[in-house]
């Protein structure tokens, strides 16, 4: 606790230092930066206060990984939406709509339609079978060490690529918005996320996420409404004015659309062949279902019922948010592109880069104060998302690799949490370091890569372990590994990395999105190597499916298991499965109820 107090005191000083530095240049811009910095500062103070509060409540691994199972479905829905509405989707999609019109909508739809599938096939089942990480579910009836190791590797790959993209995005965004140097921004983000995760665990991470989701939804609603109000809420006029603005726009993308005579309200050149379209669709849809930081959220609610409700709310919030980004994108076409103040006409881009459509629109609709607010929200968004990722990565290391794979489940809660906190710190340091290393690189492909890995390595083994009796350890490990390897290989050999990053002349793999191939290979691998597994172990694993299905459907022991702990884990004999199965059953059979 003393450490946290020290850190809490040190941070404002550090931030103040950077703020003072930013104010130095002393132009009209610095006043603008100060609004954003002060608002962000308030957010940081409030969230660190929450972390302090959460730290006192984080006493066990259950508190640390799963917020004690005490989050309601509605709160969790907001938190899930918060995890999902990253700065990339807010700024990225609205800017894509701004620059390319209809194409932006295609992406946002893909990102949304994964949610119903998660709900139908994964959410409730996750809650009933798992405790802290998705590896709990996959290893429920399979062999602990290999399956957890495979799941943890899949988790870490997803987390690291997602983190790099977020860190680089944070640095560039904050340099533009706040006038802070790139490294400062990356370091501030890295330090804050480690503080939230290491001290406040899932409780702090969840509340940071909820606050940010509310701020972001409020801000985006305000921008969209003011933009619509500009044409008196007449949609016809709204789109018409936008289309008129394109004709005189200085933006290179707009000029190209006008010159080519393309339809701004129909799909353009973003996706031009069926294989790419389906492949992108698969990655967007099923990647969501394999994101470890999202899957973890299902363990923070008390039962499967609340887990399902949370997906319902999350789908509503995210869908609403994507409709807002669409309006914001067209609003920006209408109000930002005609205004030379927001354009870098010489380069044919938006001032501050092409991701700034929503930010400029915020200024156009709400002035300096609102611009400061939205900038602060964008910073807060990045911070909240990276915290969720860091917690997921740290949990994979401490819960799956350390406690289960290395120590065989014989480890006490205090040690496990300590390992998790140290892992969070290590992940933070790595993220800062990589964030700085990749400053000049094009990292846009990394979010796509994270989604493709999630869809091809994590999702197949998770889905099959729940729904297919025949899955064995061999099948899960080989299938997952094949999915991971093919995804990374295909992305490295594709144009996005081979040509754009390494500077080679031609791509060795013709498609940008590998999901259609890598997912097929992963599923085939799981199937084939499960079928070829004639071992005794495989037989026993298939025999355990029935008991797993009962638990999955009925949720026996789950409600009881998430009640106050009556056990201490240290020195527990026997395997993990028998522990988790036995005690809940014990209480269930004795008719044990909450006092």
């Amino acid at each position, binding site marked *: 606790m003393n450490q946290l107090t020290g850190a809490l005191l040190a941070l404002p000083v550090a931030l103040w230092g950077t703020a003072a530095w930013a104010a130095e240049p002393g132009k009209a811009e610095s006043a603008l930066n100060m609004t954003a910095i002060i608002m962000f500062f308030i957010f940081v103070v409030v969230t660190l206060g929450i972390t302090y509060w959460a730290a006192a409540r984080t006493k066990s691994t259950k508190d640390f990984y799963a917020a004690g199972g005490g989050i309601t479905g509605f709160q969790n829905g907001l938190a899930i939406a918060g995890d999902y509405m990253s700065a990339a989707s807010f700024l990225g999609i609205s800017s894509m709509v701004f620059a390319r019109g209809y194409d932006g909508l295609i992406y*946002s739809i893909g990102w949304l*339609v994964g949610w119903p*599938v998660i709900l139908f096939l994964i959410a409730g089942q996750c809650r009933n079978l798992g405790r802290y990480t998705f590896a709990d579910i996959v290893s429920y009836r399979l062999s602990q060490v290999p399956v957890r190791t495979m799941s943890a590797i899949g988790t870490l790959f997803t987390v690291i690529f997602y983190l790099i993209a977020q860190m680089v995005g944070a640095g560039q965004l904050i340099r533009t918005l706040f006038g802070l140097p790139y490294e400062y921004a990356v370091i501030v983000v890295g330090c804050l996320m480690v503080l939230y995760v290491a001290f406040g665990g899932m409780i702090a991470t969840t509340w940071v996420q909820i606050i940010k989701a509310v701020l972001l939804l409020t801000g985006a609603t305000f921008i969209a409404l003011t933009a619509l109000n500009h044409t008196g809420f007449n949609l016809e006029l709204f789109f018409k004015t936008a289309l008129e603005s394109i004709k005189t726009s200085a933006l290179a993308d707009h000029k190209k659309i006008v010159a080519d005579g393309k339809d701004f309200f*129909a799909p353009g050149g973003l*996706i031009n062949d069926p294989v790419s379209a389906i492949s992108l*669709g698969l990655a967007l849809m099923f990647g969501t279902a394999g994101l470890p930081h999202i899957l973890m959220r299902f363990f923070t609610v008390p039962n499967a019922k609340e887990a399902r409700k949370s997906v319902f709310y999350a*789908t509503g919030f995210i*869908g609403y948010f994507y409709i807002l980004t669409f309006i914001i994108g067209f609003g920006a076409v209408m109000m930002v592109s005609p205004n030379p103040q927001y354009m870098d006409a010489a380069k044919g881009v938006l001032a501050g880069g092409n991701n700034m459509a929503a930010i400029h629109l915020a200024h156009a609709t709400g002035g300096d104060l609102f611009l400061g607010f939205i900038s602060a929200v964008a910073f807060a968004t990045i911070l909240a998302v990276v915290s969720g990722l860091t917690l997921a990565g740290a949990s994979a290391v401490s819960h799956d690799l350390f406690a289960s794979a290395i120590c065989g489940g014989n480890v006490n809660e205090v040690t496990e949490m300590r390992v998790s906190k140290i892992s969070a710190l290590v992940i933070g340091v790595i993220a800062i370091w990589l964030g700085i290393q990749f400053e000049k690189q094009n990292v846009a492909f990394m979010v796509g890569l994270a989604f493709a890995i999630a869809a091809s390595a994590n999702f197949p083994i998770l889905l099959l372990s729940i729904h297919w009796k025949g899955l064995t350890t061999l099948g899960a490990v080989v299938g997952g590994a094949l999915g991971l390897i093919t995804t990374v290989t295909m992305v490295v050999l594709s144009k996005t990395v081979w040509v754009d990053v390494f500077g080679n002349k031609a791509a060795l793999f013709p498609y940008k999105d590998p999901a259609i191939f890598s997912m097929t290979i992963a599923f085939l691998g799981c199937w084939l190597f499960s079928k070829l597994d004639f071992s005794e172990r495989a037989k026993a694993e298939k025999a355990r499916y*029935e008991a797993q299905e009962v638990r999955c459907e009925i949720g026996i022991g789950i409600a009881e298991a998430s009640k106050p702990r009556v056990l201490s884990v240290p020195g527990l004999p026997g395997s993990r499965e028998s522990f988790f199965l036995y005690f809940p059953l014990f209480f269930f*059979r004795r008719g044990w109820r909450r006092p």
Partner: protein
Amino acid sequence: MSTDSAEKELVKRITANPKYQELVAGRSCTQWVLSVVMLVIYFSFILVVAFAPKSLGTKISPDSIISVGIPFGVSVIVSAFILTGIYVYKANSKYDELVSQIKEDVK
């Protein structure tokens, strides 16, 4: 050892319960049917994007500037939300009722 056999016995009693059969069959049917509905909606959208992008540019009425693609896209988003609503309603009322009955039976 006793844990193991107690667990096996409980599993046996539950799986033998006709209500459990009804639950598993009903729920998995709902799950897969709704998943397929979502996949069909989404991939028909994606395939139209891939094969007939121009058709999405058709105007909703001759004197309108809004293309059919916009309401189509928005309705895919709305349909996703409605499908989750249907499942949550069914699972949290009908199936959860069955679950609690089964729990009562094996007590």
